[in-house]
């Protein structure tokens, strides 16, 4: 990022705000589970890994039409803790406090927020 680009956005947004041209963003969005997780955080801003796992399990159940089991949820929780959340934290899209389990959305600009919403919403339209 050049000095020039930086100064353009410096005024009204926090340092480190994610934009559409951040390469990391696309890696982060390359997973349905991570897109859903980011979408939930867009709405709630802050959540916990436990709650995210519960909602993702319920979300999955709405697609299979079957009861999600405690094992299903446990698998999701493990994947979140060991894979998805560290990856998203690495790309600064979220902050994740391992000890408390609190997950918060990092600073994203509006086009990024729209992209996340659209990626999840279009998925639902395809299914319905």
């Amino acid at each position, binding site marked *: 990022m050049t000095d020039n680009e930086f100064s353009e956005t410096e005024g009204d947004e926090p340092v480190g705000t994610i934009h559409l041209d951040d390469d990391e963003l696309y890696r982060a969005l390359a997973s349905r589970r991570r897109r859903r997780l980011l*979408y*939930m955080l*867009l*709405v709630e801003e802050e959540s916990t890994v436990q709650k995210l796992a*519960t*909602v993702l*399990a*319920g*979300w999955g*159940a*709405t*697609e299979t*039409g*079957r*009861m*999600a*089991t*405690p094992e299903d*949820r446990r698998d999701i929780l493990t994947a979140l803790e060991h894979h998805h959340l560290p990856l998203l934290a690495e790309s600064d899209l979220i902050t994740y406090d391992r000890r408390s389990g609190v997950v918060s959305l990092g600073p994203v600009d509006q086009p990024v927020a729209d992209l996340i*919403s659209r990626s*999840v*919403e279009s998925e*639902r339209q395809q299914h319905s």
Partner: protein
Amino acid sequence: MFDPLLAEIQNQGRQFTVYEGDEESGIPSQFETHAVSVRQEELPPGGPAPFVVIEQDGEFAGALPVDELQKLIEPPIVRPGERTDVSEGFGVLFEVLDDTVFTAMNRKQLLAVSREIEDRATRVRTGTLRTSFQNRSRLEPQIELYRYLASHTDLDIHIYGIEPADASPIPGVTYHRGAQLDRYWSLAFDGGDHESQSCALVARETPNGYDGFWTYDPVLVDEILSTLADCDDSSR
């Protein structure tokens, strides 16, 4: 006497969380009278279809789409197999649905449930039946039935809330004063040789009528039978 049990029945550590958008499923009101606490969480418009998360004692037991749940709770209740081999979520759900209903009840409903319990005892003809009456006038209309049960079945019959000295003796019926029971309307039958027939009712008089529950859960029925048996303050 039954207050701790009534409090426990009211939710039994069960919690349903309904995740839904603007369109309300009506699930919370459908479970209003059941032994579960229900709360709602909002889903964003582009999110998933509504679903219900089932928890027992704070632990996730399962999650089910609302439309699937609706199919399950519309009578006749359909069970995906026997309880032992279904997942935890269904176990909790069916407990909520059929074991125990905690609700406000009027005299008419209480009478109907009482007749059902007495009727089961009449058909099974063995086992123990414990019934508490709030006063003698409540016993009067039923006395012939109890006389019949005592003479024509092998039931062990105990009647509570009646001073033994004041009662007309019936061979085979044991009266108990059960002074602690005067606010309660309760019957319990252990099912005799047919445990599946066990059933019980516990209701507590309130300023507006009664609230309470009835159950076909043998463990709970047993607990109610013991509570009644403990009121054995002045038998015979």
